[in-house]
């Protein structure tokens, strides 16, 4: 790796790390004022817990040469992970760490305002180990079975977004519906939502344009299509919202942008500007109506993780197979990649669903853990109850 690529990949890693506080604000702004600290902490604490897990064994499990399904323990504690740019291993491991940090944080949108925080810490460790690391291995490790099959996922449509979306469904289902939200919830701080979306968009350039691991033409192209898909989906959400209500929601704009970013993620190394517009259009429409359909179901995916990341990710994975240029996409007459990506999507859904389910069921019955905060704590707000902090303290109450 030459010094230009090192420069870019260091920055890209920093950008992806910065997405997690961004997510904290995106999610934090959407909840009620009594659960802000809690929601923000779900994301922030992942920067601590997952970093440690990744260094100790996560990276090794995900990228050790263990076979088709899982890595091994060769790189435990980053042993033999060389910092030499010529090798690039440590830089790759760092970059990948940032993906591992944000993925479980994405899930927390589904369980916000009620999931027990201590249990969440254990969940983080288990989920990275048993769900994230294997799927990352399948898709991105040289000996992973989906990689070998030929499935294409440039920057994490399956590993990150579909995975998080499905885990979100499971978690929302198992933890149950929030108390007292039948009349709907207004986001308590819209500027925070926009701040979070702005940081996410900014950081996503690292996420996607960094996934080629070089400062080259591929990074440039990935950058462009990332921005384009986000922009299109933003506009689609604003317009659809206006059609339905006559008003233009800022939260809708932010959600649309994120949906576009999600959908372009797997495709960003493979499609051109026109493909990006198609991906953005599809993402905007599909995720918008996915949210509306979600309302009809019983489960309370509080911040629409399945609709935005799950559906957005699935669409992105399929769209990669459809719009990939260079003779490998459906529009170029080749359905092979699309087929492989369907397999990758289905495998991710199945595995994420089952193993997340098992993990949560176990956590639920372990004495002292359990998934859900006490009713009284939920009513008072998790901030005061579990964190001993109020998000905002007026002058009169220092």
């Amino acid at each position, binding site marked *: 790796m030459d010094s230009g690529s090192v420069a870019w990949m260091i920055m890209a890693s920093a950008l992806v790390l910065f997405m997690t506080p961004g997510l904290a604000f995106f999610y934090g702004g959407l909840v009620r004022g009594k659960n802000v600290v809690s929601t923000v902490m779900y994301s922030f604490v992942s920067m601590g817990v997952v970093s440690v897990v990744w260094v100790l064994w996560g990276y090794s499990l995900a990228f050790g040469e263990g076979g088709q399904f899982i890595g091994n323990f060769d790189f435990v504690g980053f042993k033999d992970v060389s910092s030499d740019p010529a090798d690039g291993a440590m830089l790759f491991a760092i970059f990948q760490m940032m993906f591992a940090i944000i993925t479980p944080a994405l899930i927390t949108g589904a369980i916000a305002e009620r999931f027990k925080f201590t249990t969440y810490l254990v969940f983080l460790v288990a989920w990275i180990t048993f769900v994230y690391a294997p799927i990352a291995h399948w898709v991105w490790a040289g000996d992973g079975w989906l990689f070998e099959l030929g499935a294409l996922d440039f920057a994490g449509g399956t590993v990150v977004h579909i995975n998080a979306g499905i885990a979100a469904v499971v978690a929302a289902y198992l933890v149950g519906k929030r108390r007292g939200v039948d009349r709907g919830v207004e986001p308590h701080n819209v500027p925070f939502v926009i701040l979070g979306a702005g940081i996410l968009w900014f950081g996503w350039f690292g996420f996607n344009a960094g996934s080629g691991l070089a400062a080259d033409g591929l990074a440039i192209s990935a950058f462009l299509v990332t921005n384009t898909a986000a922009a299109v989906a933003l506009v689609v959400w604003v317009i659809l919202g206006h059609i339905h209500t006559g008003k233009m929601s800022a939260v809708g704009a932010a959600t649309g942008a994120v949906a576009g970013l999600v959908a372009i993620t797997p495709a960003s190394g493979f499609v051109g500007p026109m493909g990006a517009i198609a991906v953005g259009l599809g993402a905007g429409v599909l995720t918008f109506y996915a949210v509306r359909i979600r309302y009809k179901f019983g489960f309370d995916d509080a911040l629409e993780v399945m609709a935005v990341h799950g559906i957005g990710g699935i669409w992105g994975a399929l769209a990669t197979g459809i719009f990939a240029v260079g003779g490998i996409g459906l529009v170029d007459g080749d359905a092979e990649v699309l087929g492989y990506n369907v397999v990758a999507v289905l495998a991710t859904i199945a595995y994420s669903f089952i193993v997340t389910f098992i993990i949560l069921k176990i956590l639920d019955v372990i004495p002292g853990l359990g998934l859900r905060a006490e009713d009284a704590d939920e*009513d*008072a707000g998790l901030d*005061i109850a579990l964190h001993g*902090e*109020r998000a905002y303290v007026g002058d009169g*109450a220092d």
Partner: protein
Amino acid sequence: MIKIEAVVRPERVNLVVEALIDAGCGGYHIANVTGKGTQQGVEVFTGRGATITTRAALPKTVVTTVVKADKKDAVVEAIIVASRTGEDGQIGDGKIFVSPVSEVIRVRTGEKDAAAL
């Protein structure tokens, strides 16, 4: 005319105001406060090295409405129904205070008292 001030749980306020309208109130206003009663204050961090102090940190909402005296019972009943949690209620469900109002004026028209409500 009388003023009815109800201190309720924030998570109930949307139900309470709906009930008010149904009970025939002409208007109301709501404000967020911090309260303490039988329900104890809560422990919050007041220092980073895990220093905890009890503060009256529970958010409550005050709903205020001025109505004709004869509507009092209906309004109070409506508030109770909308803000009591569970069958028997729980500590912290709130309190209702009734006090006299001697005059009401509508800014727009200058109408007074009952006509202004």
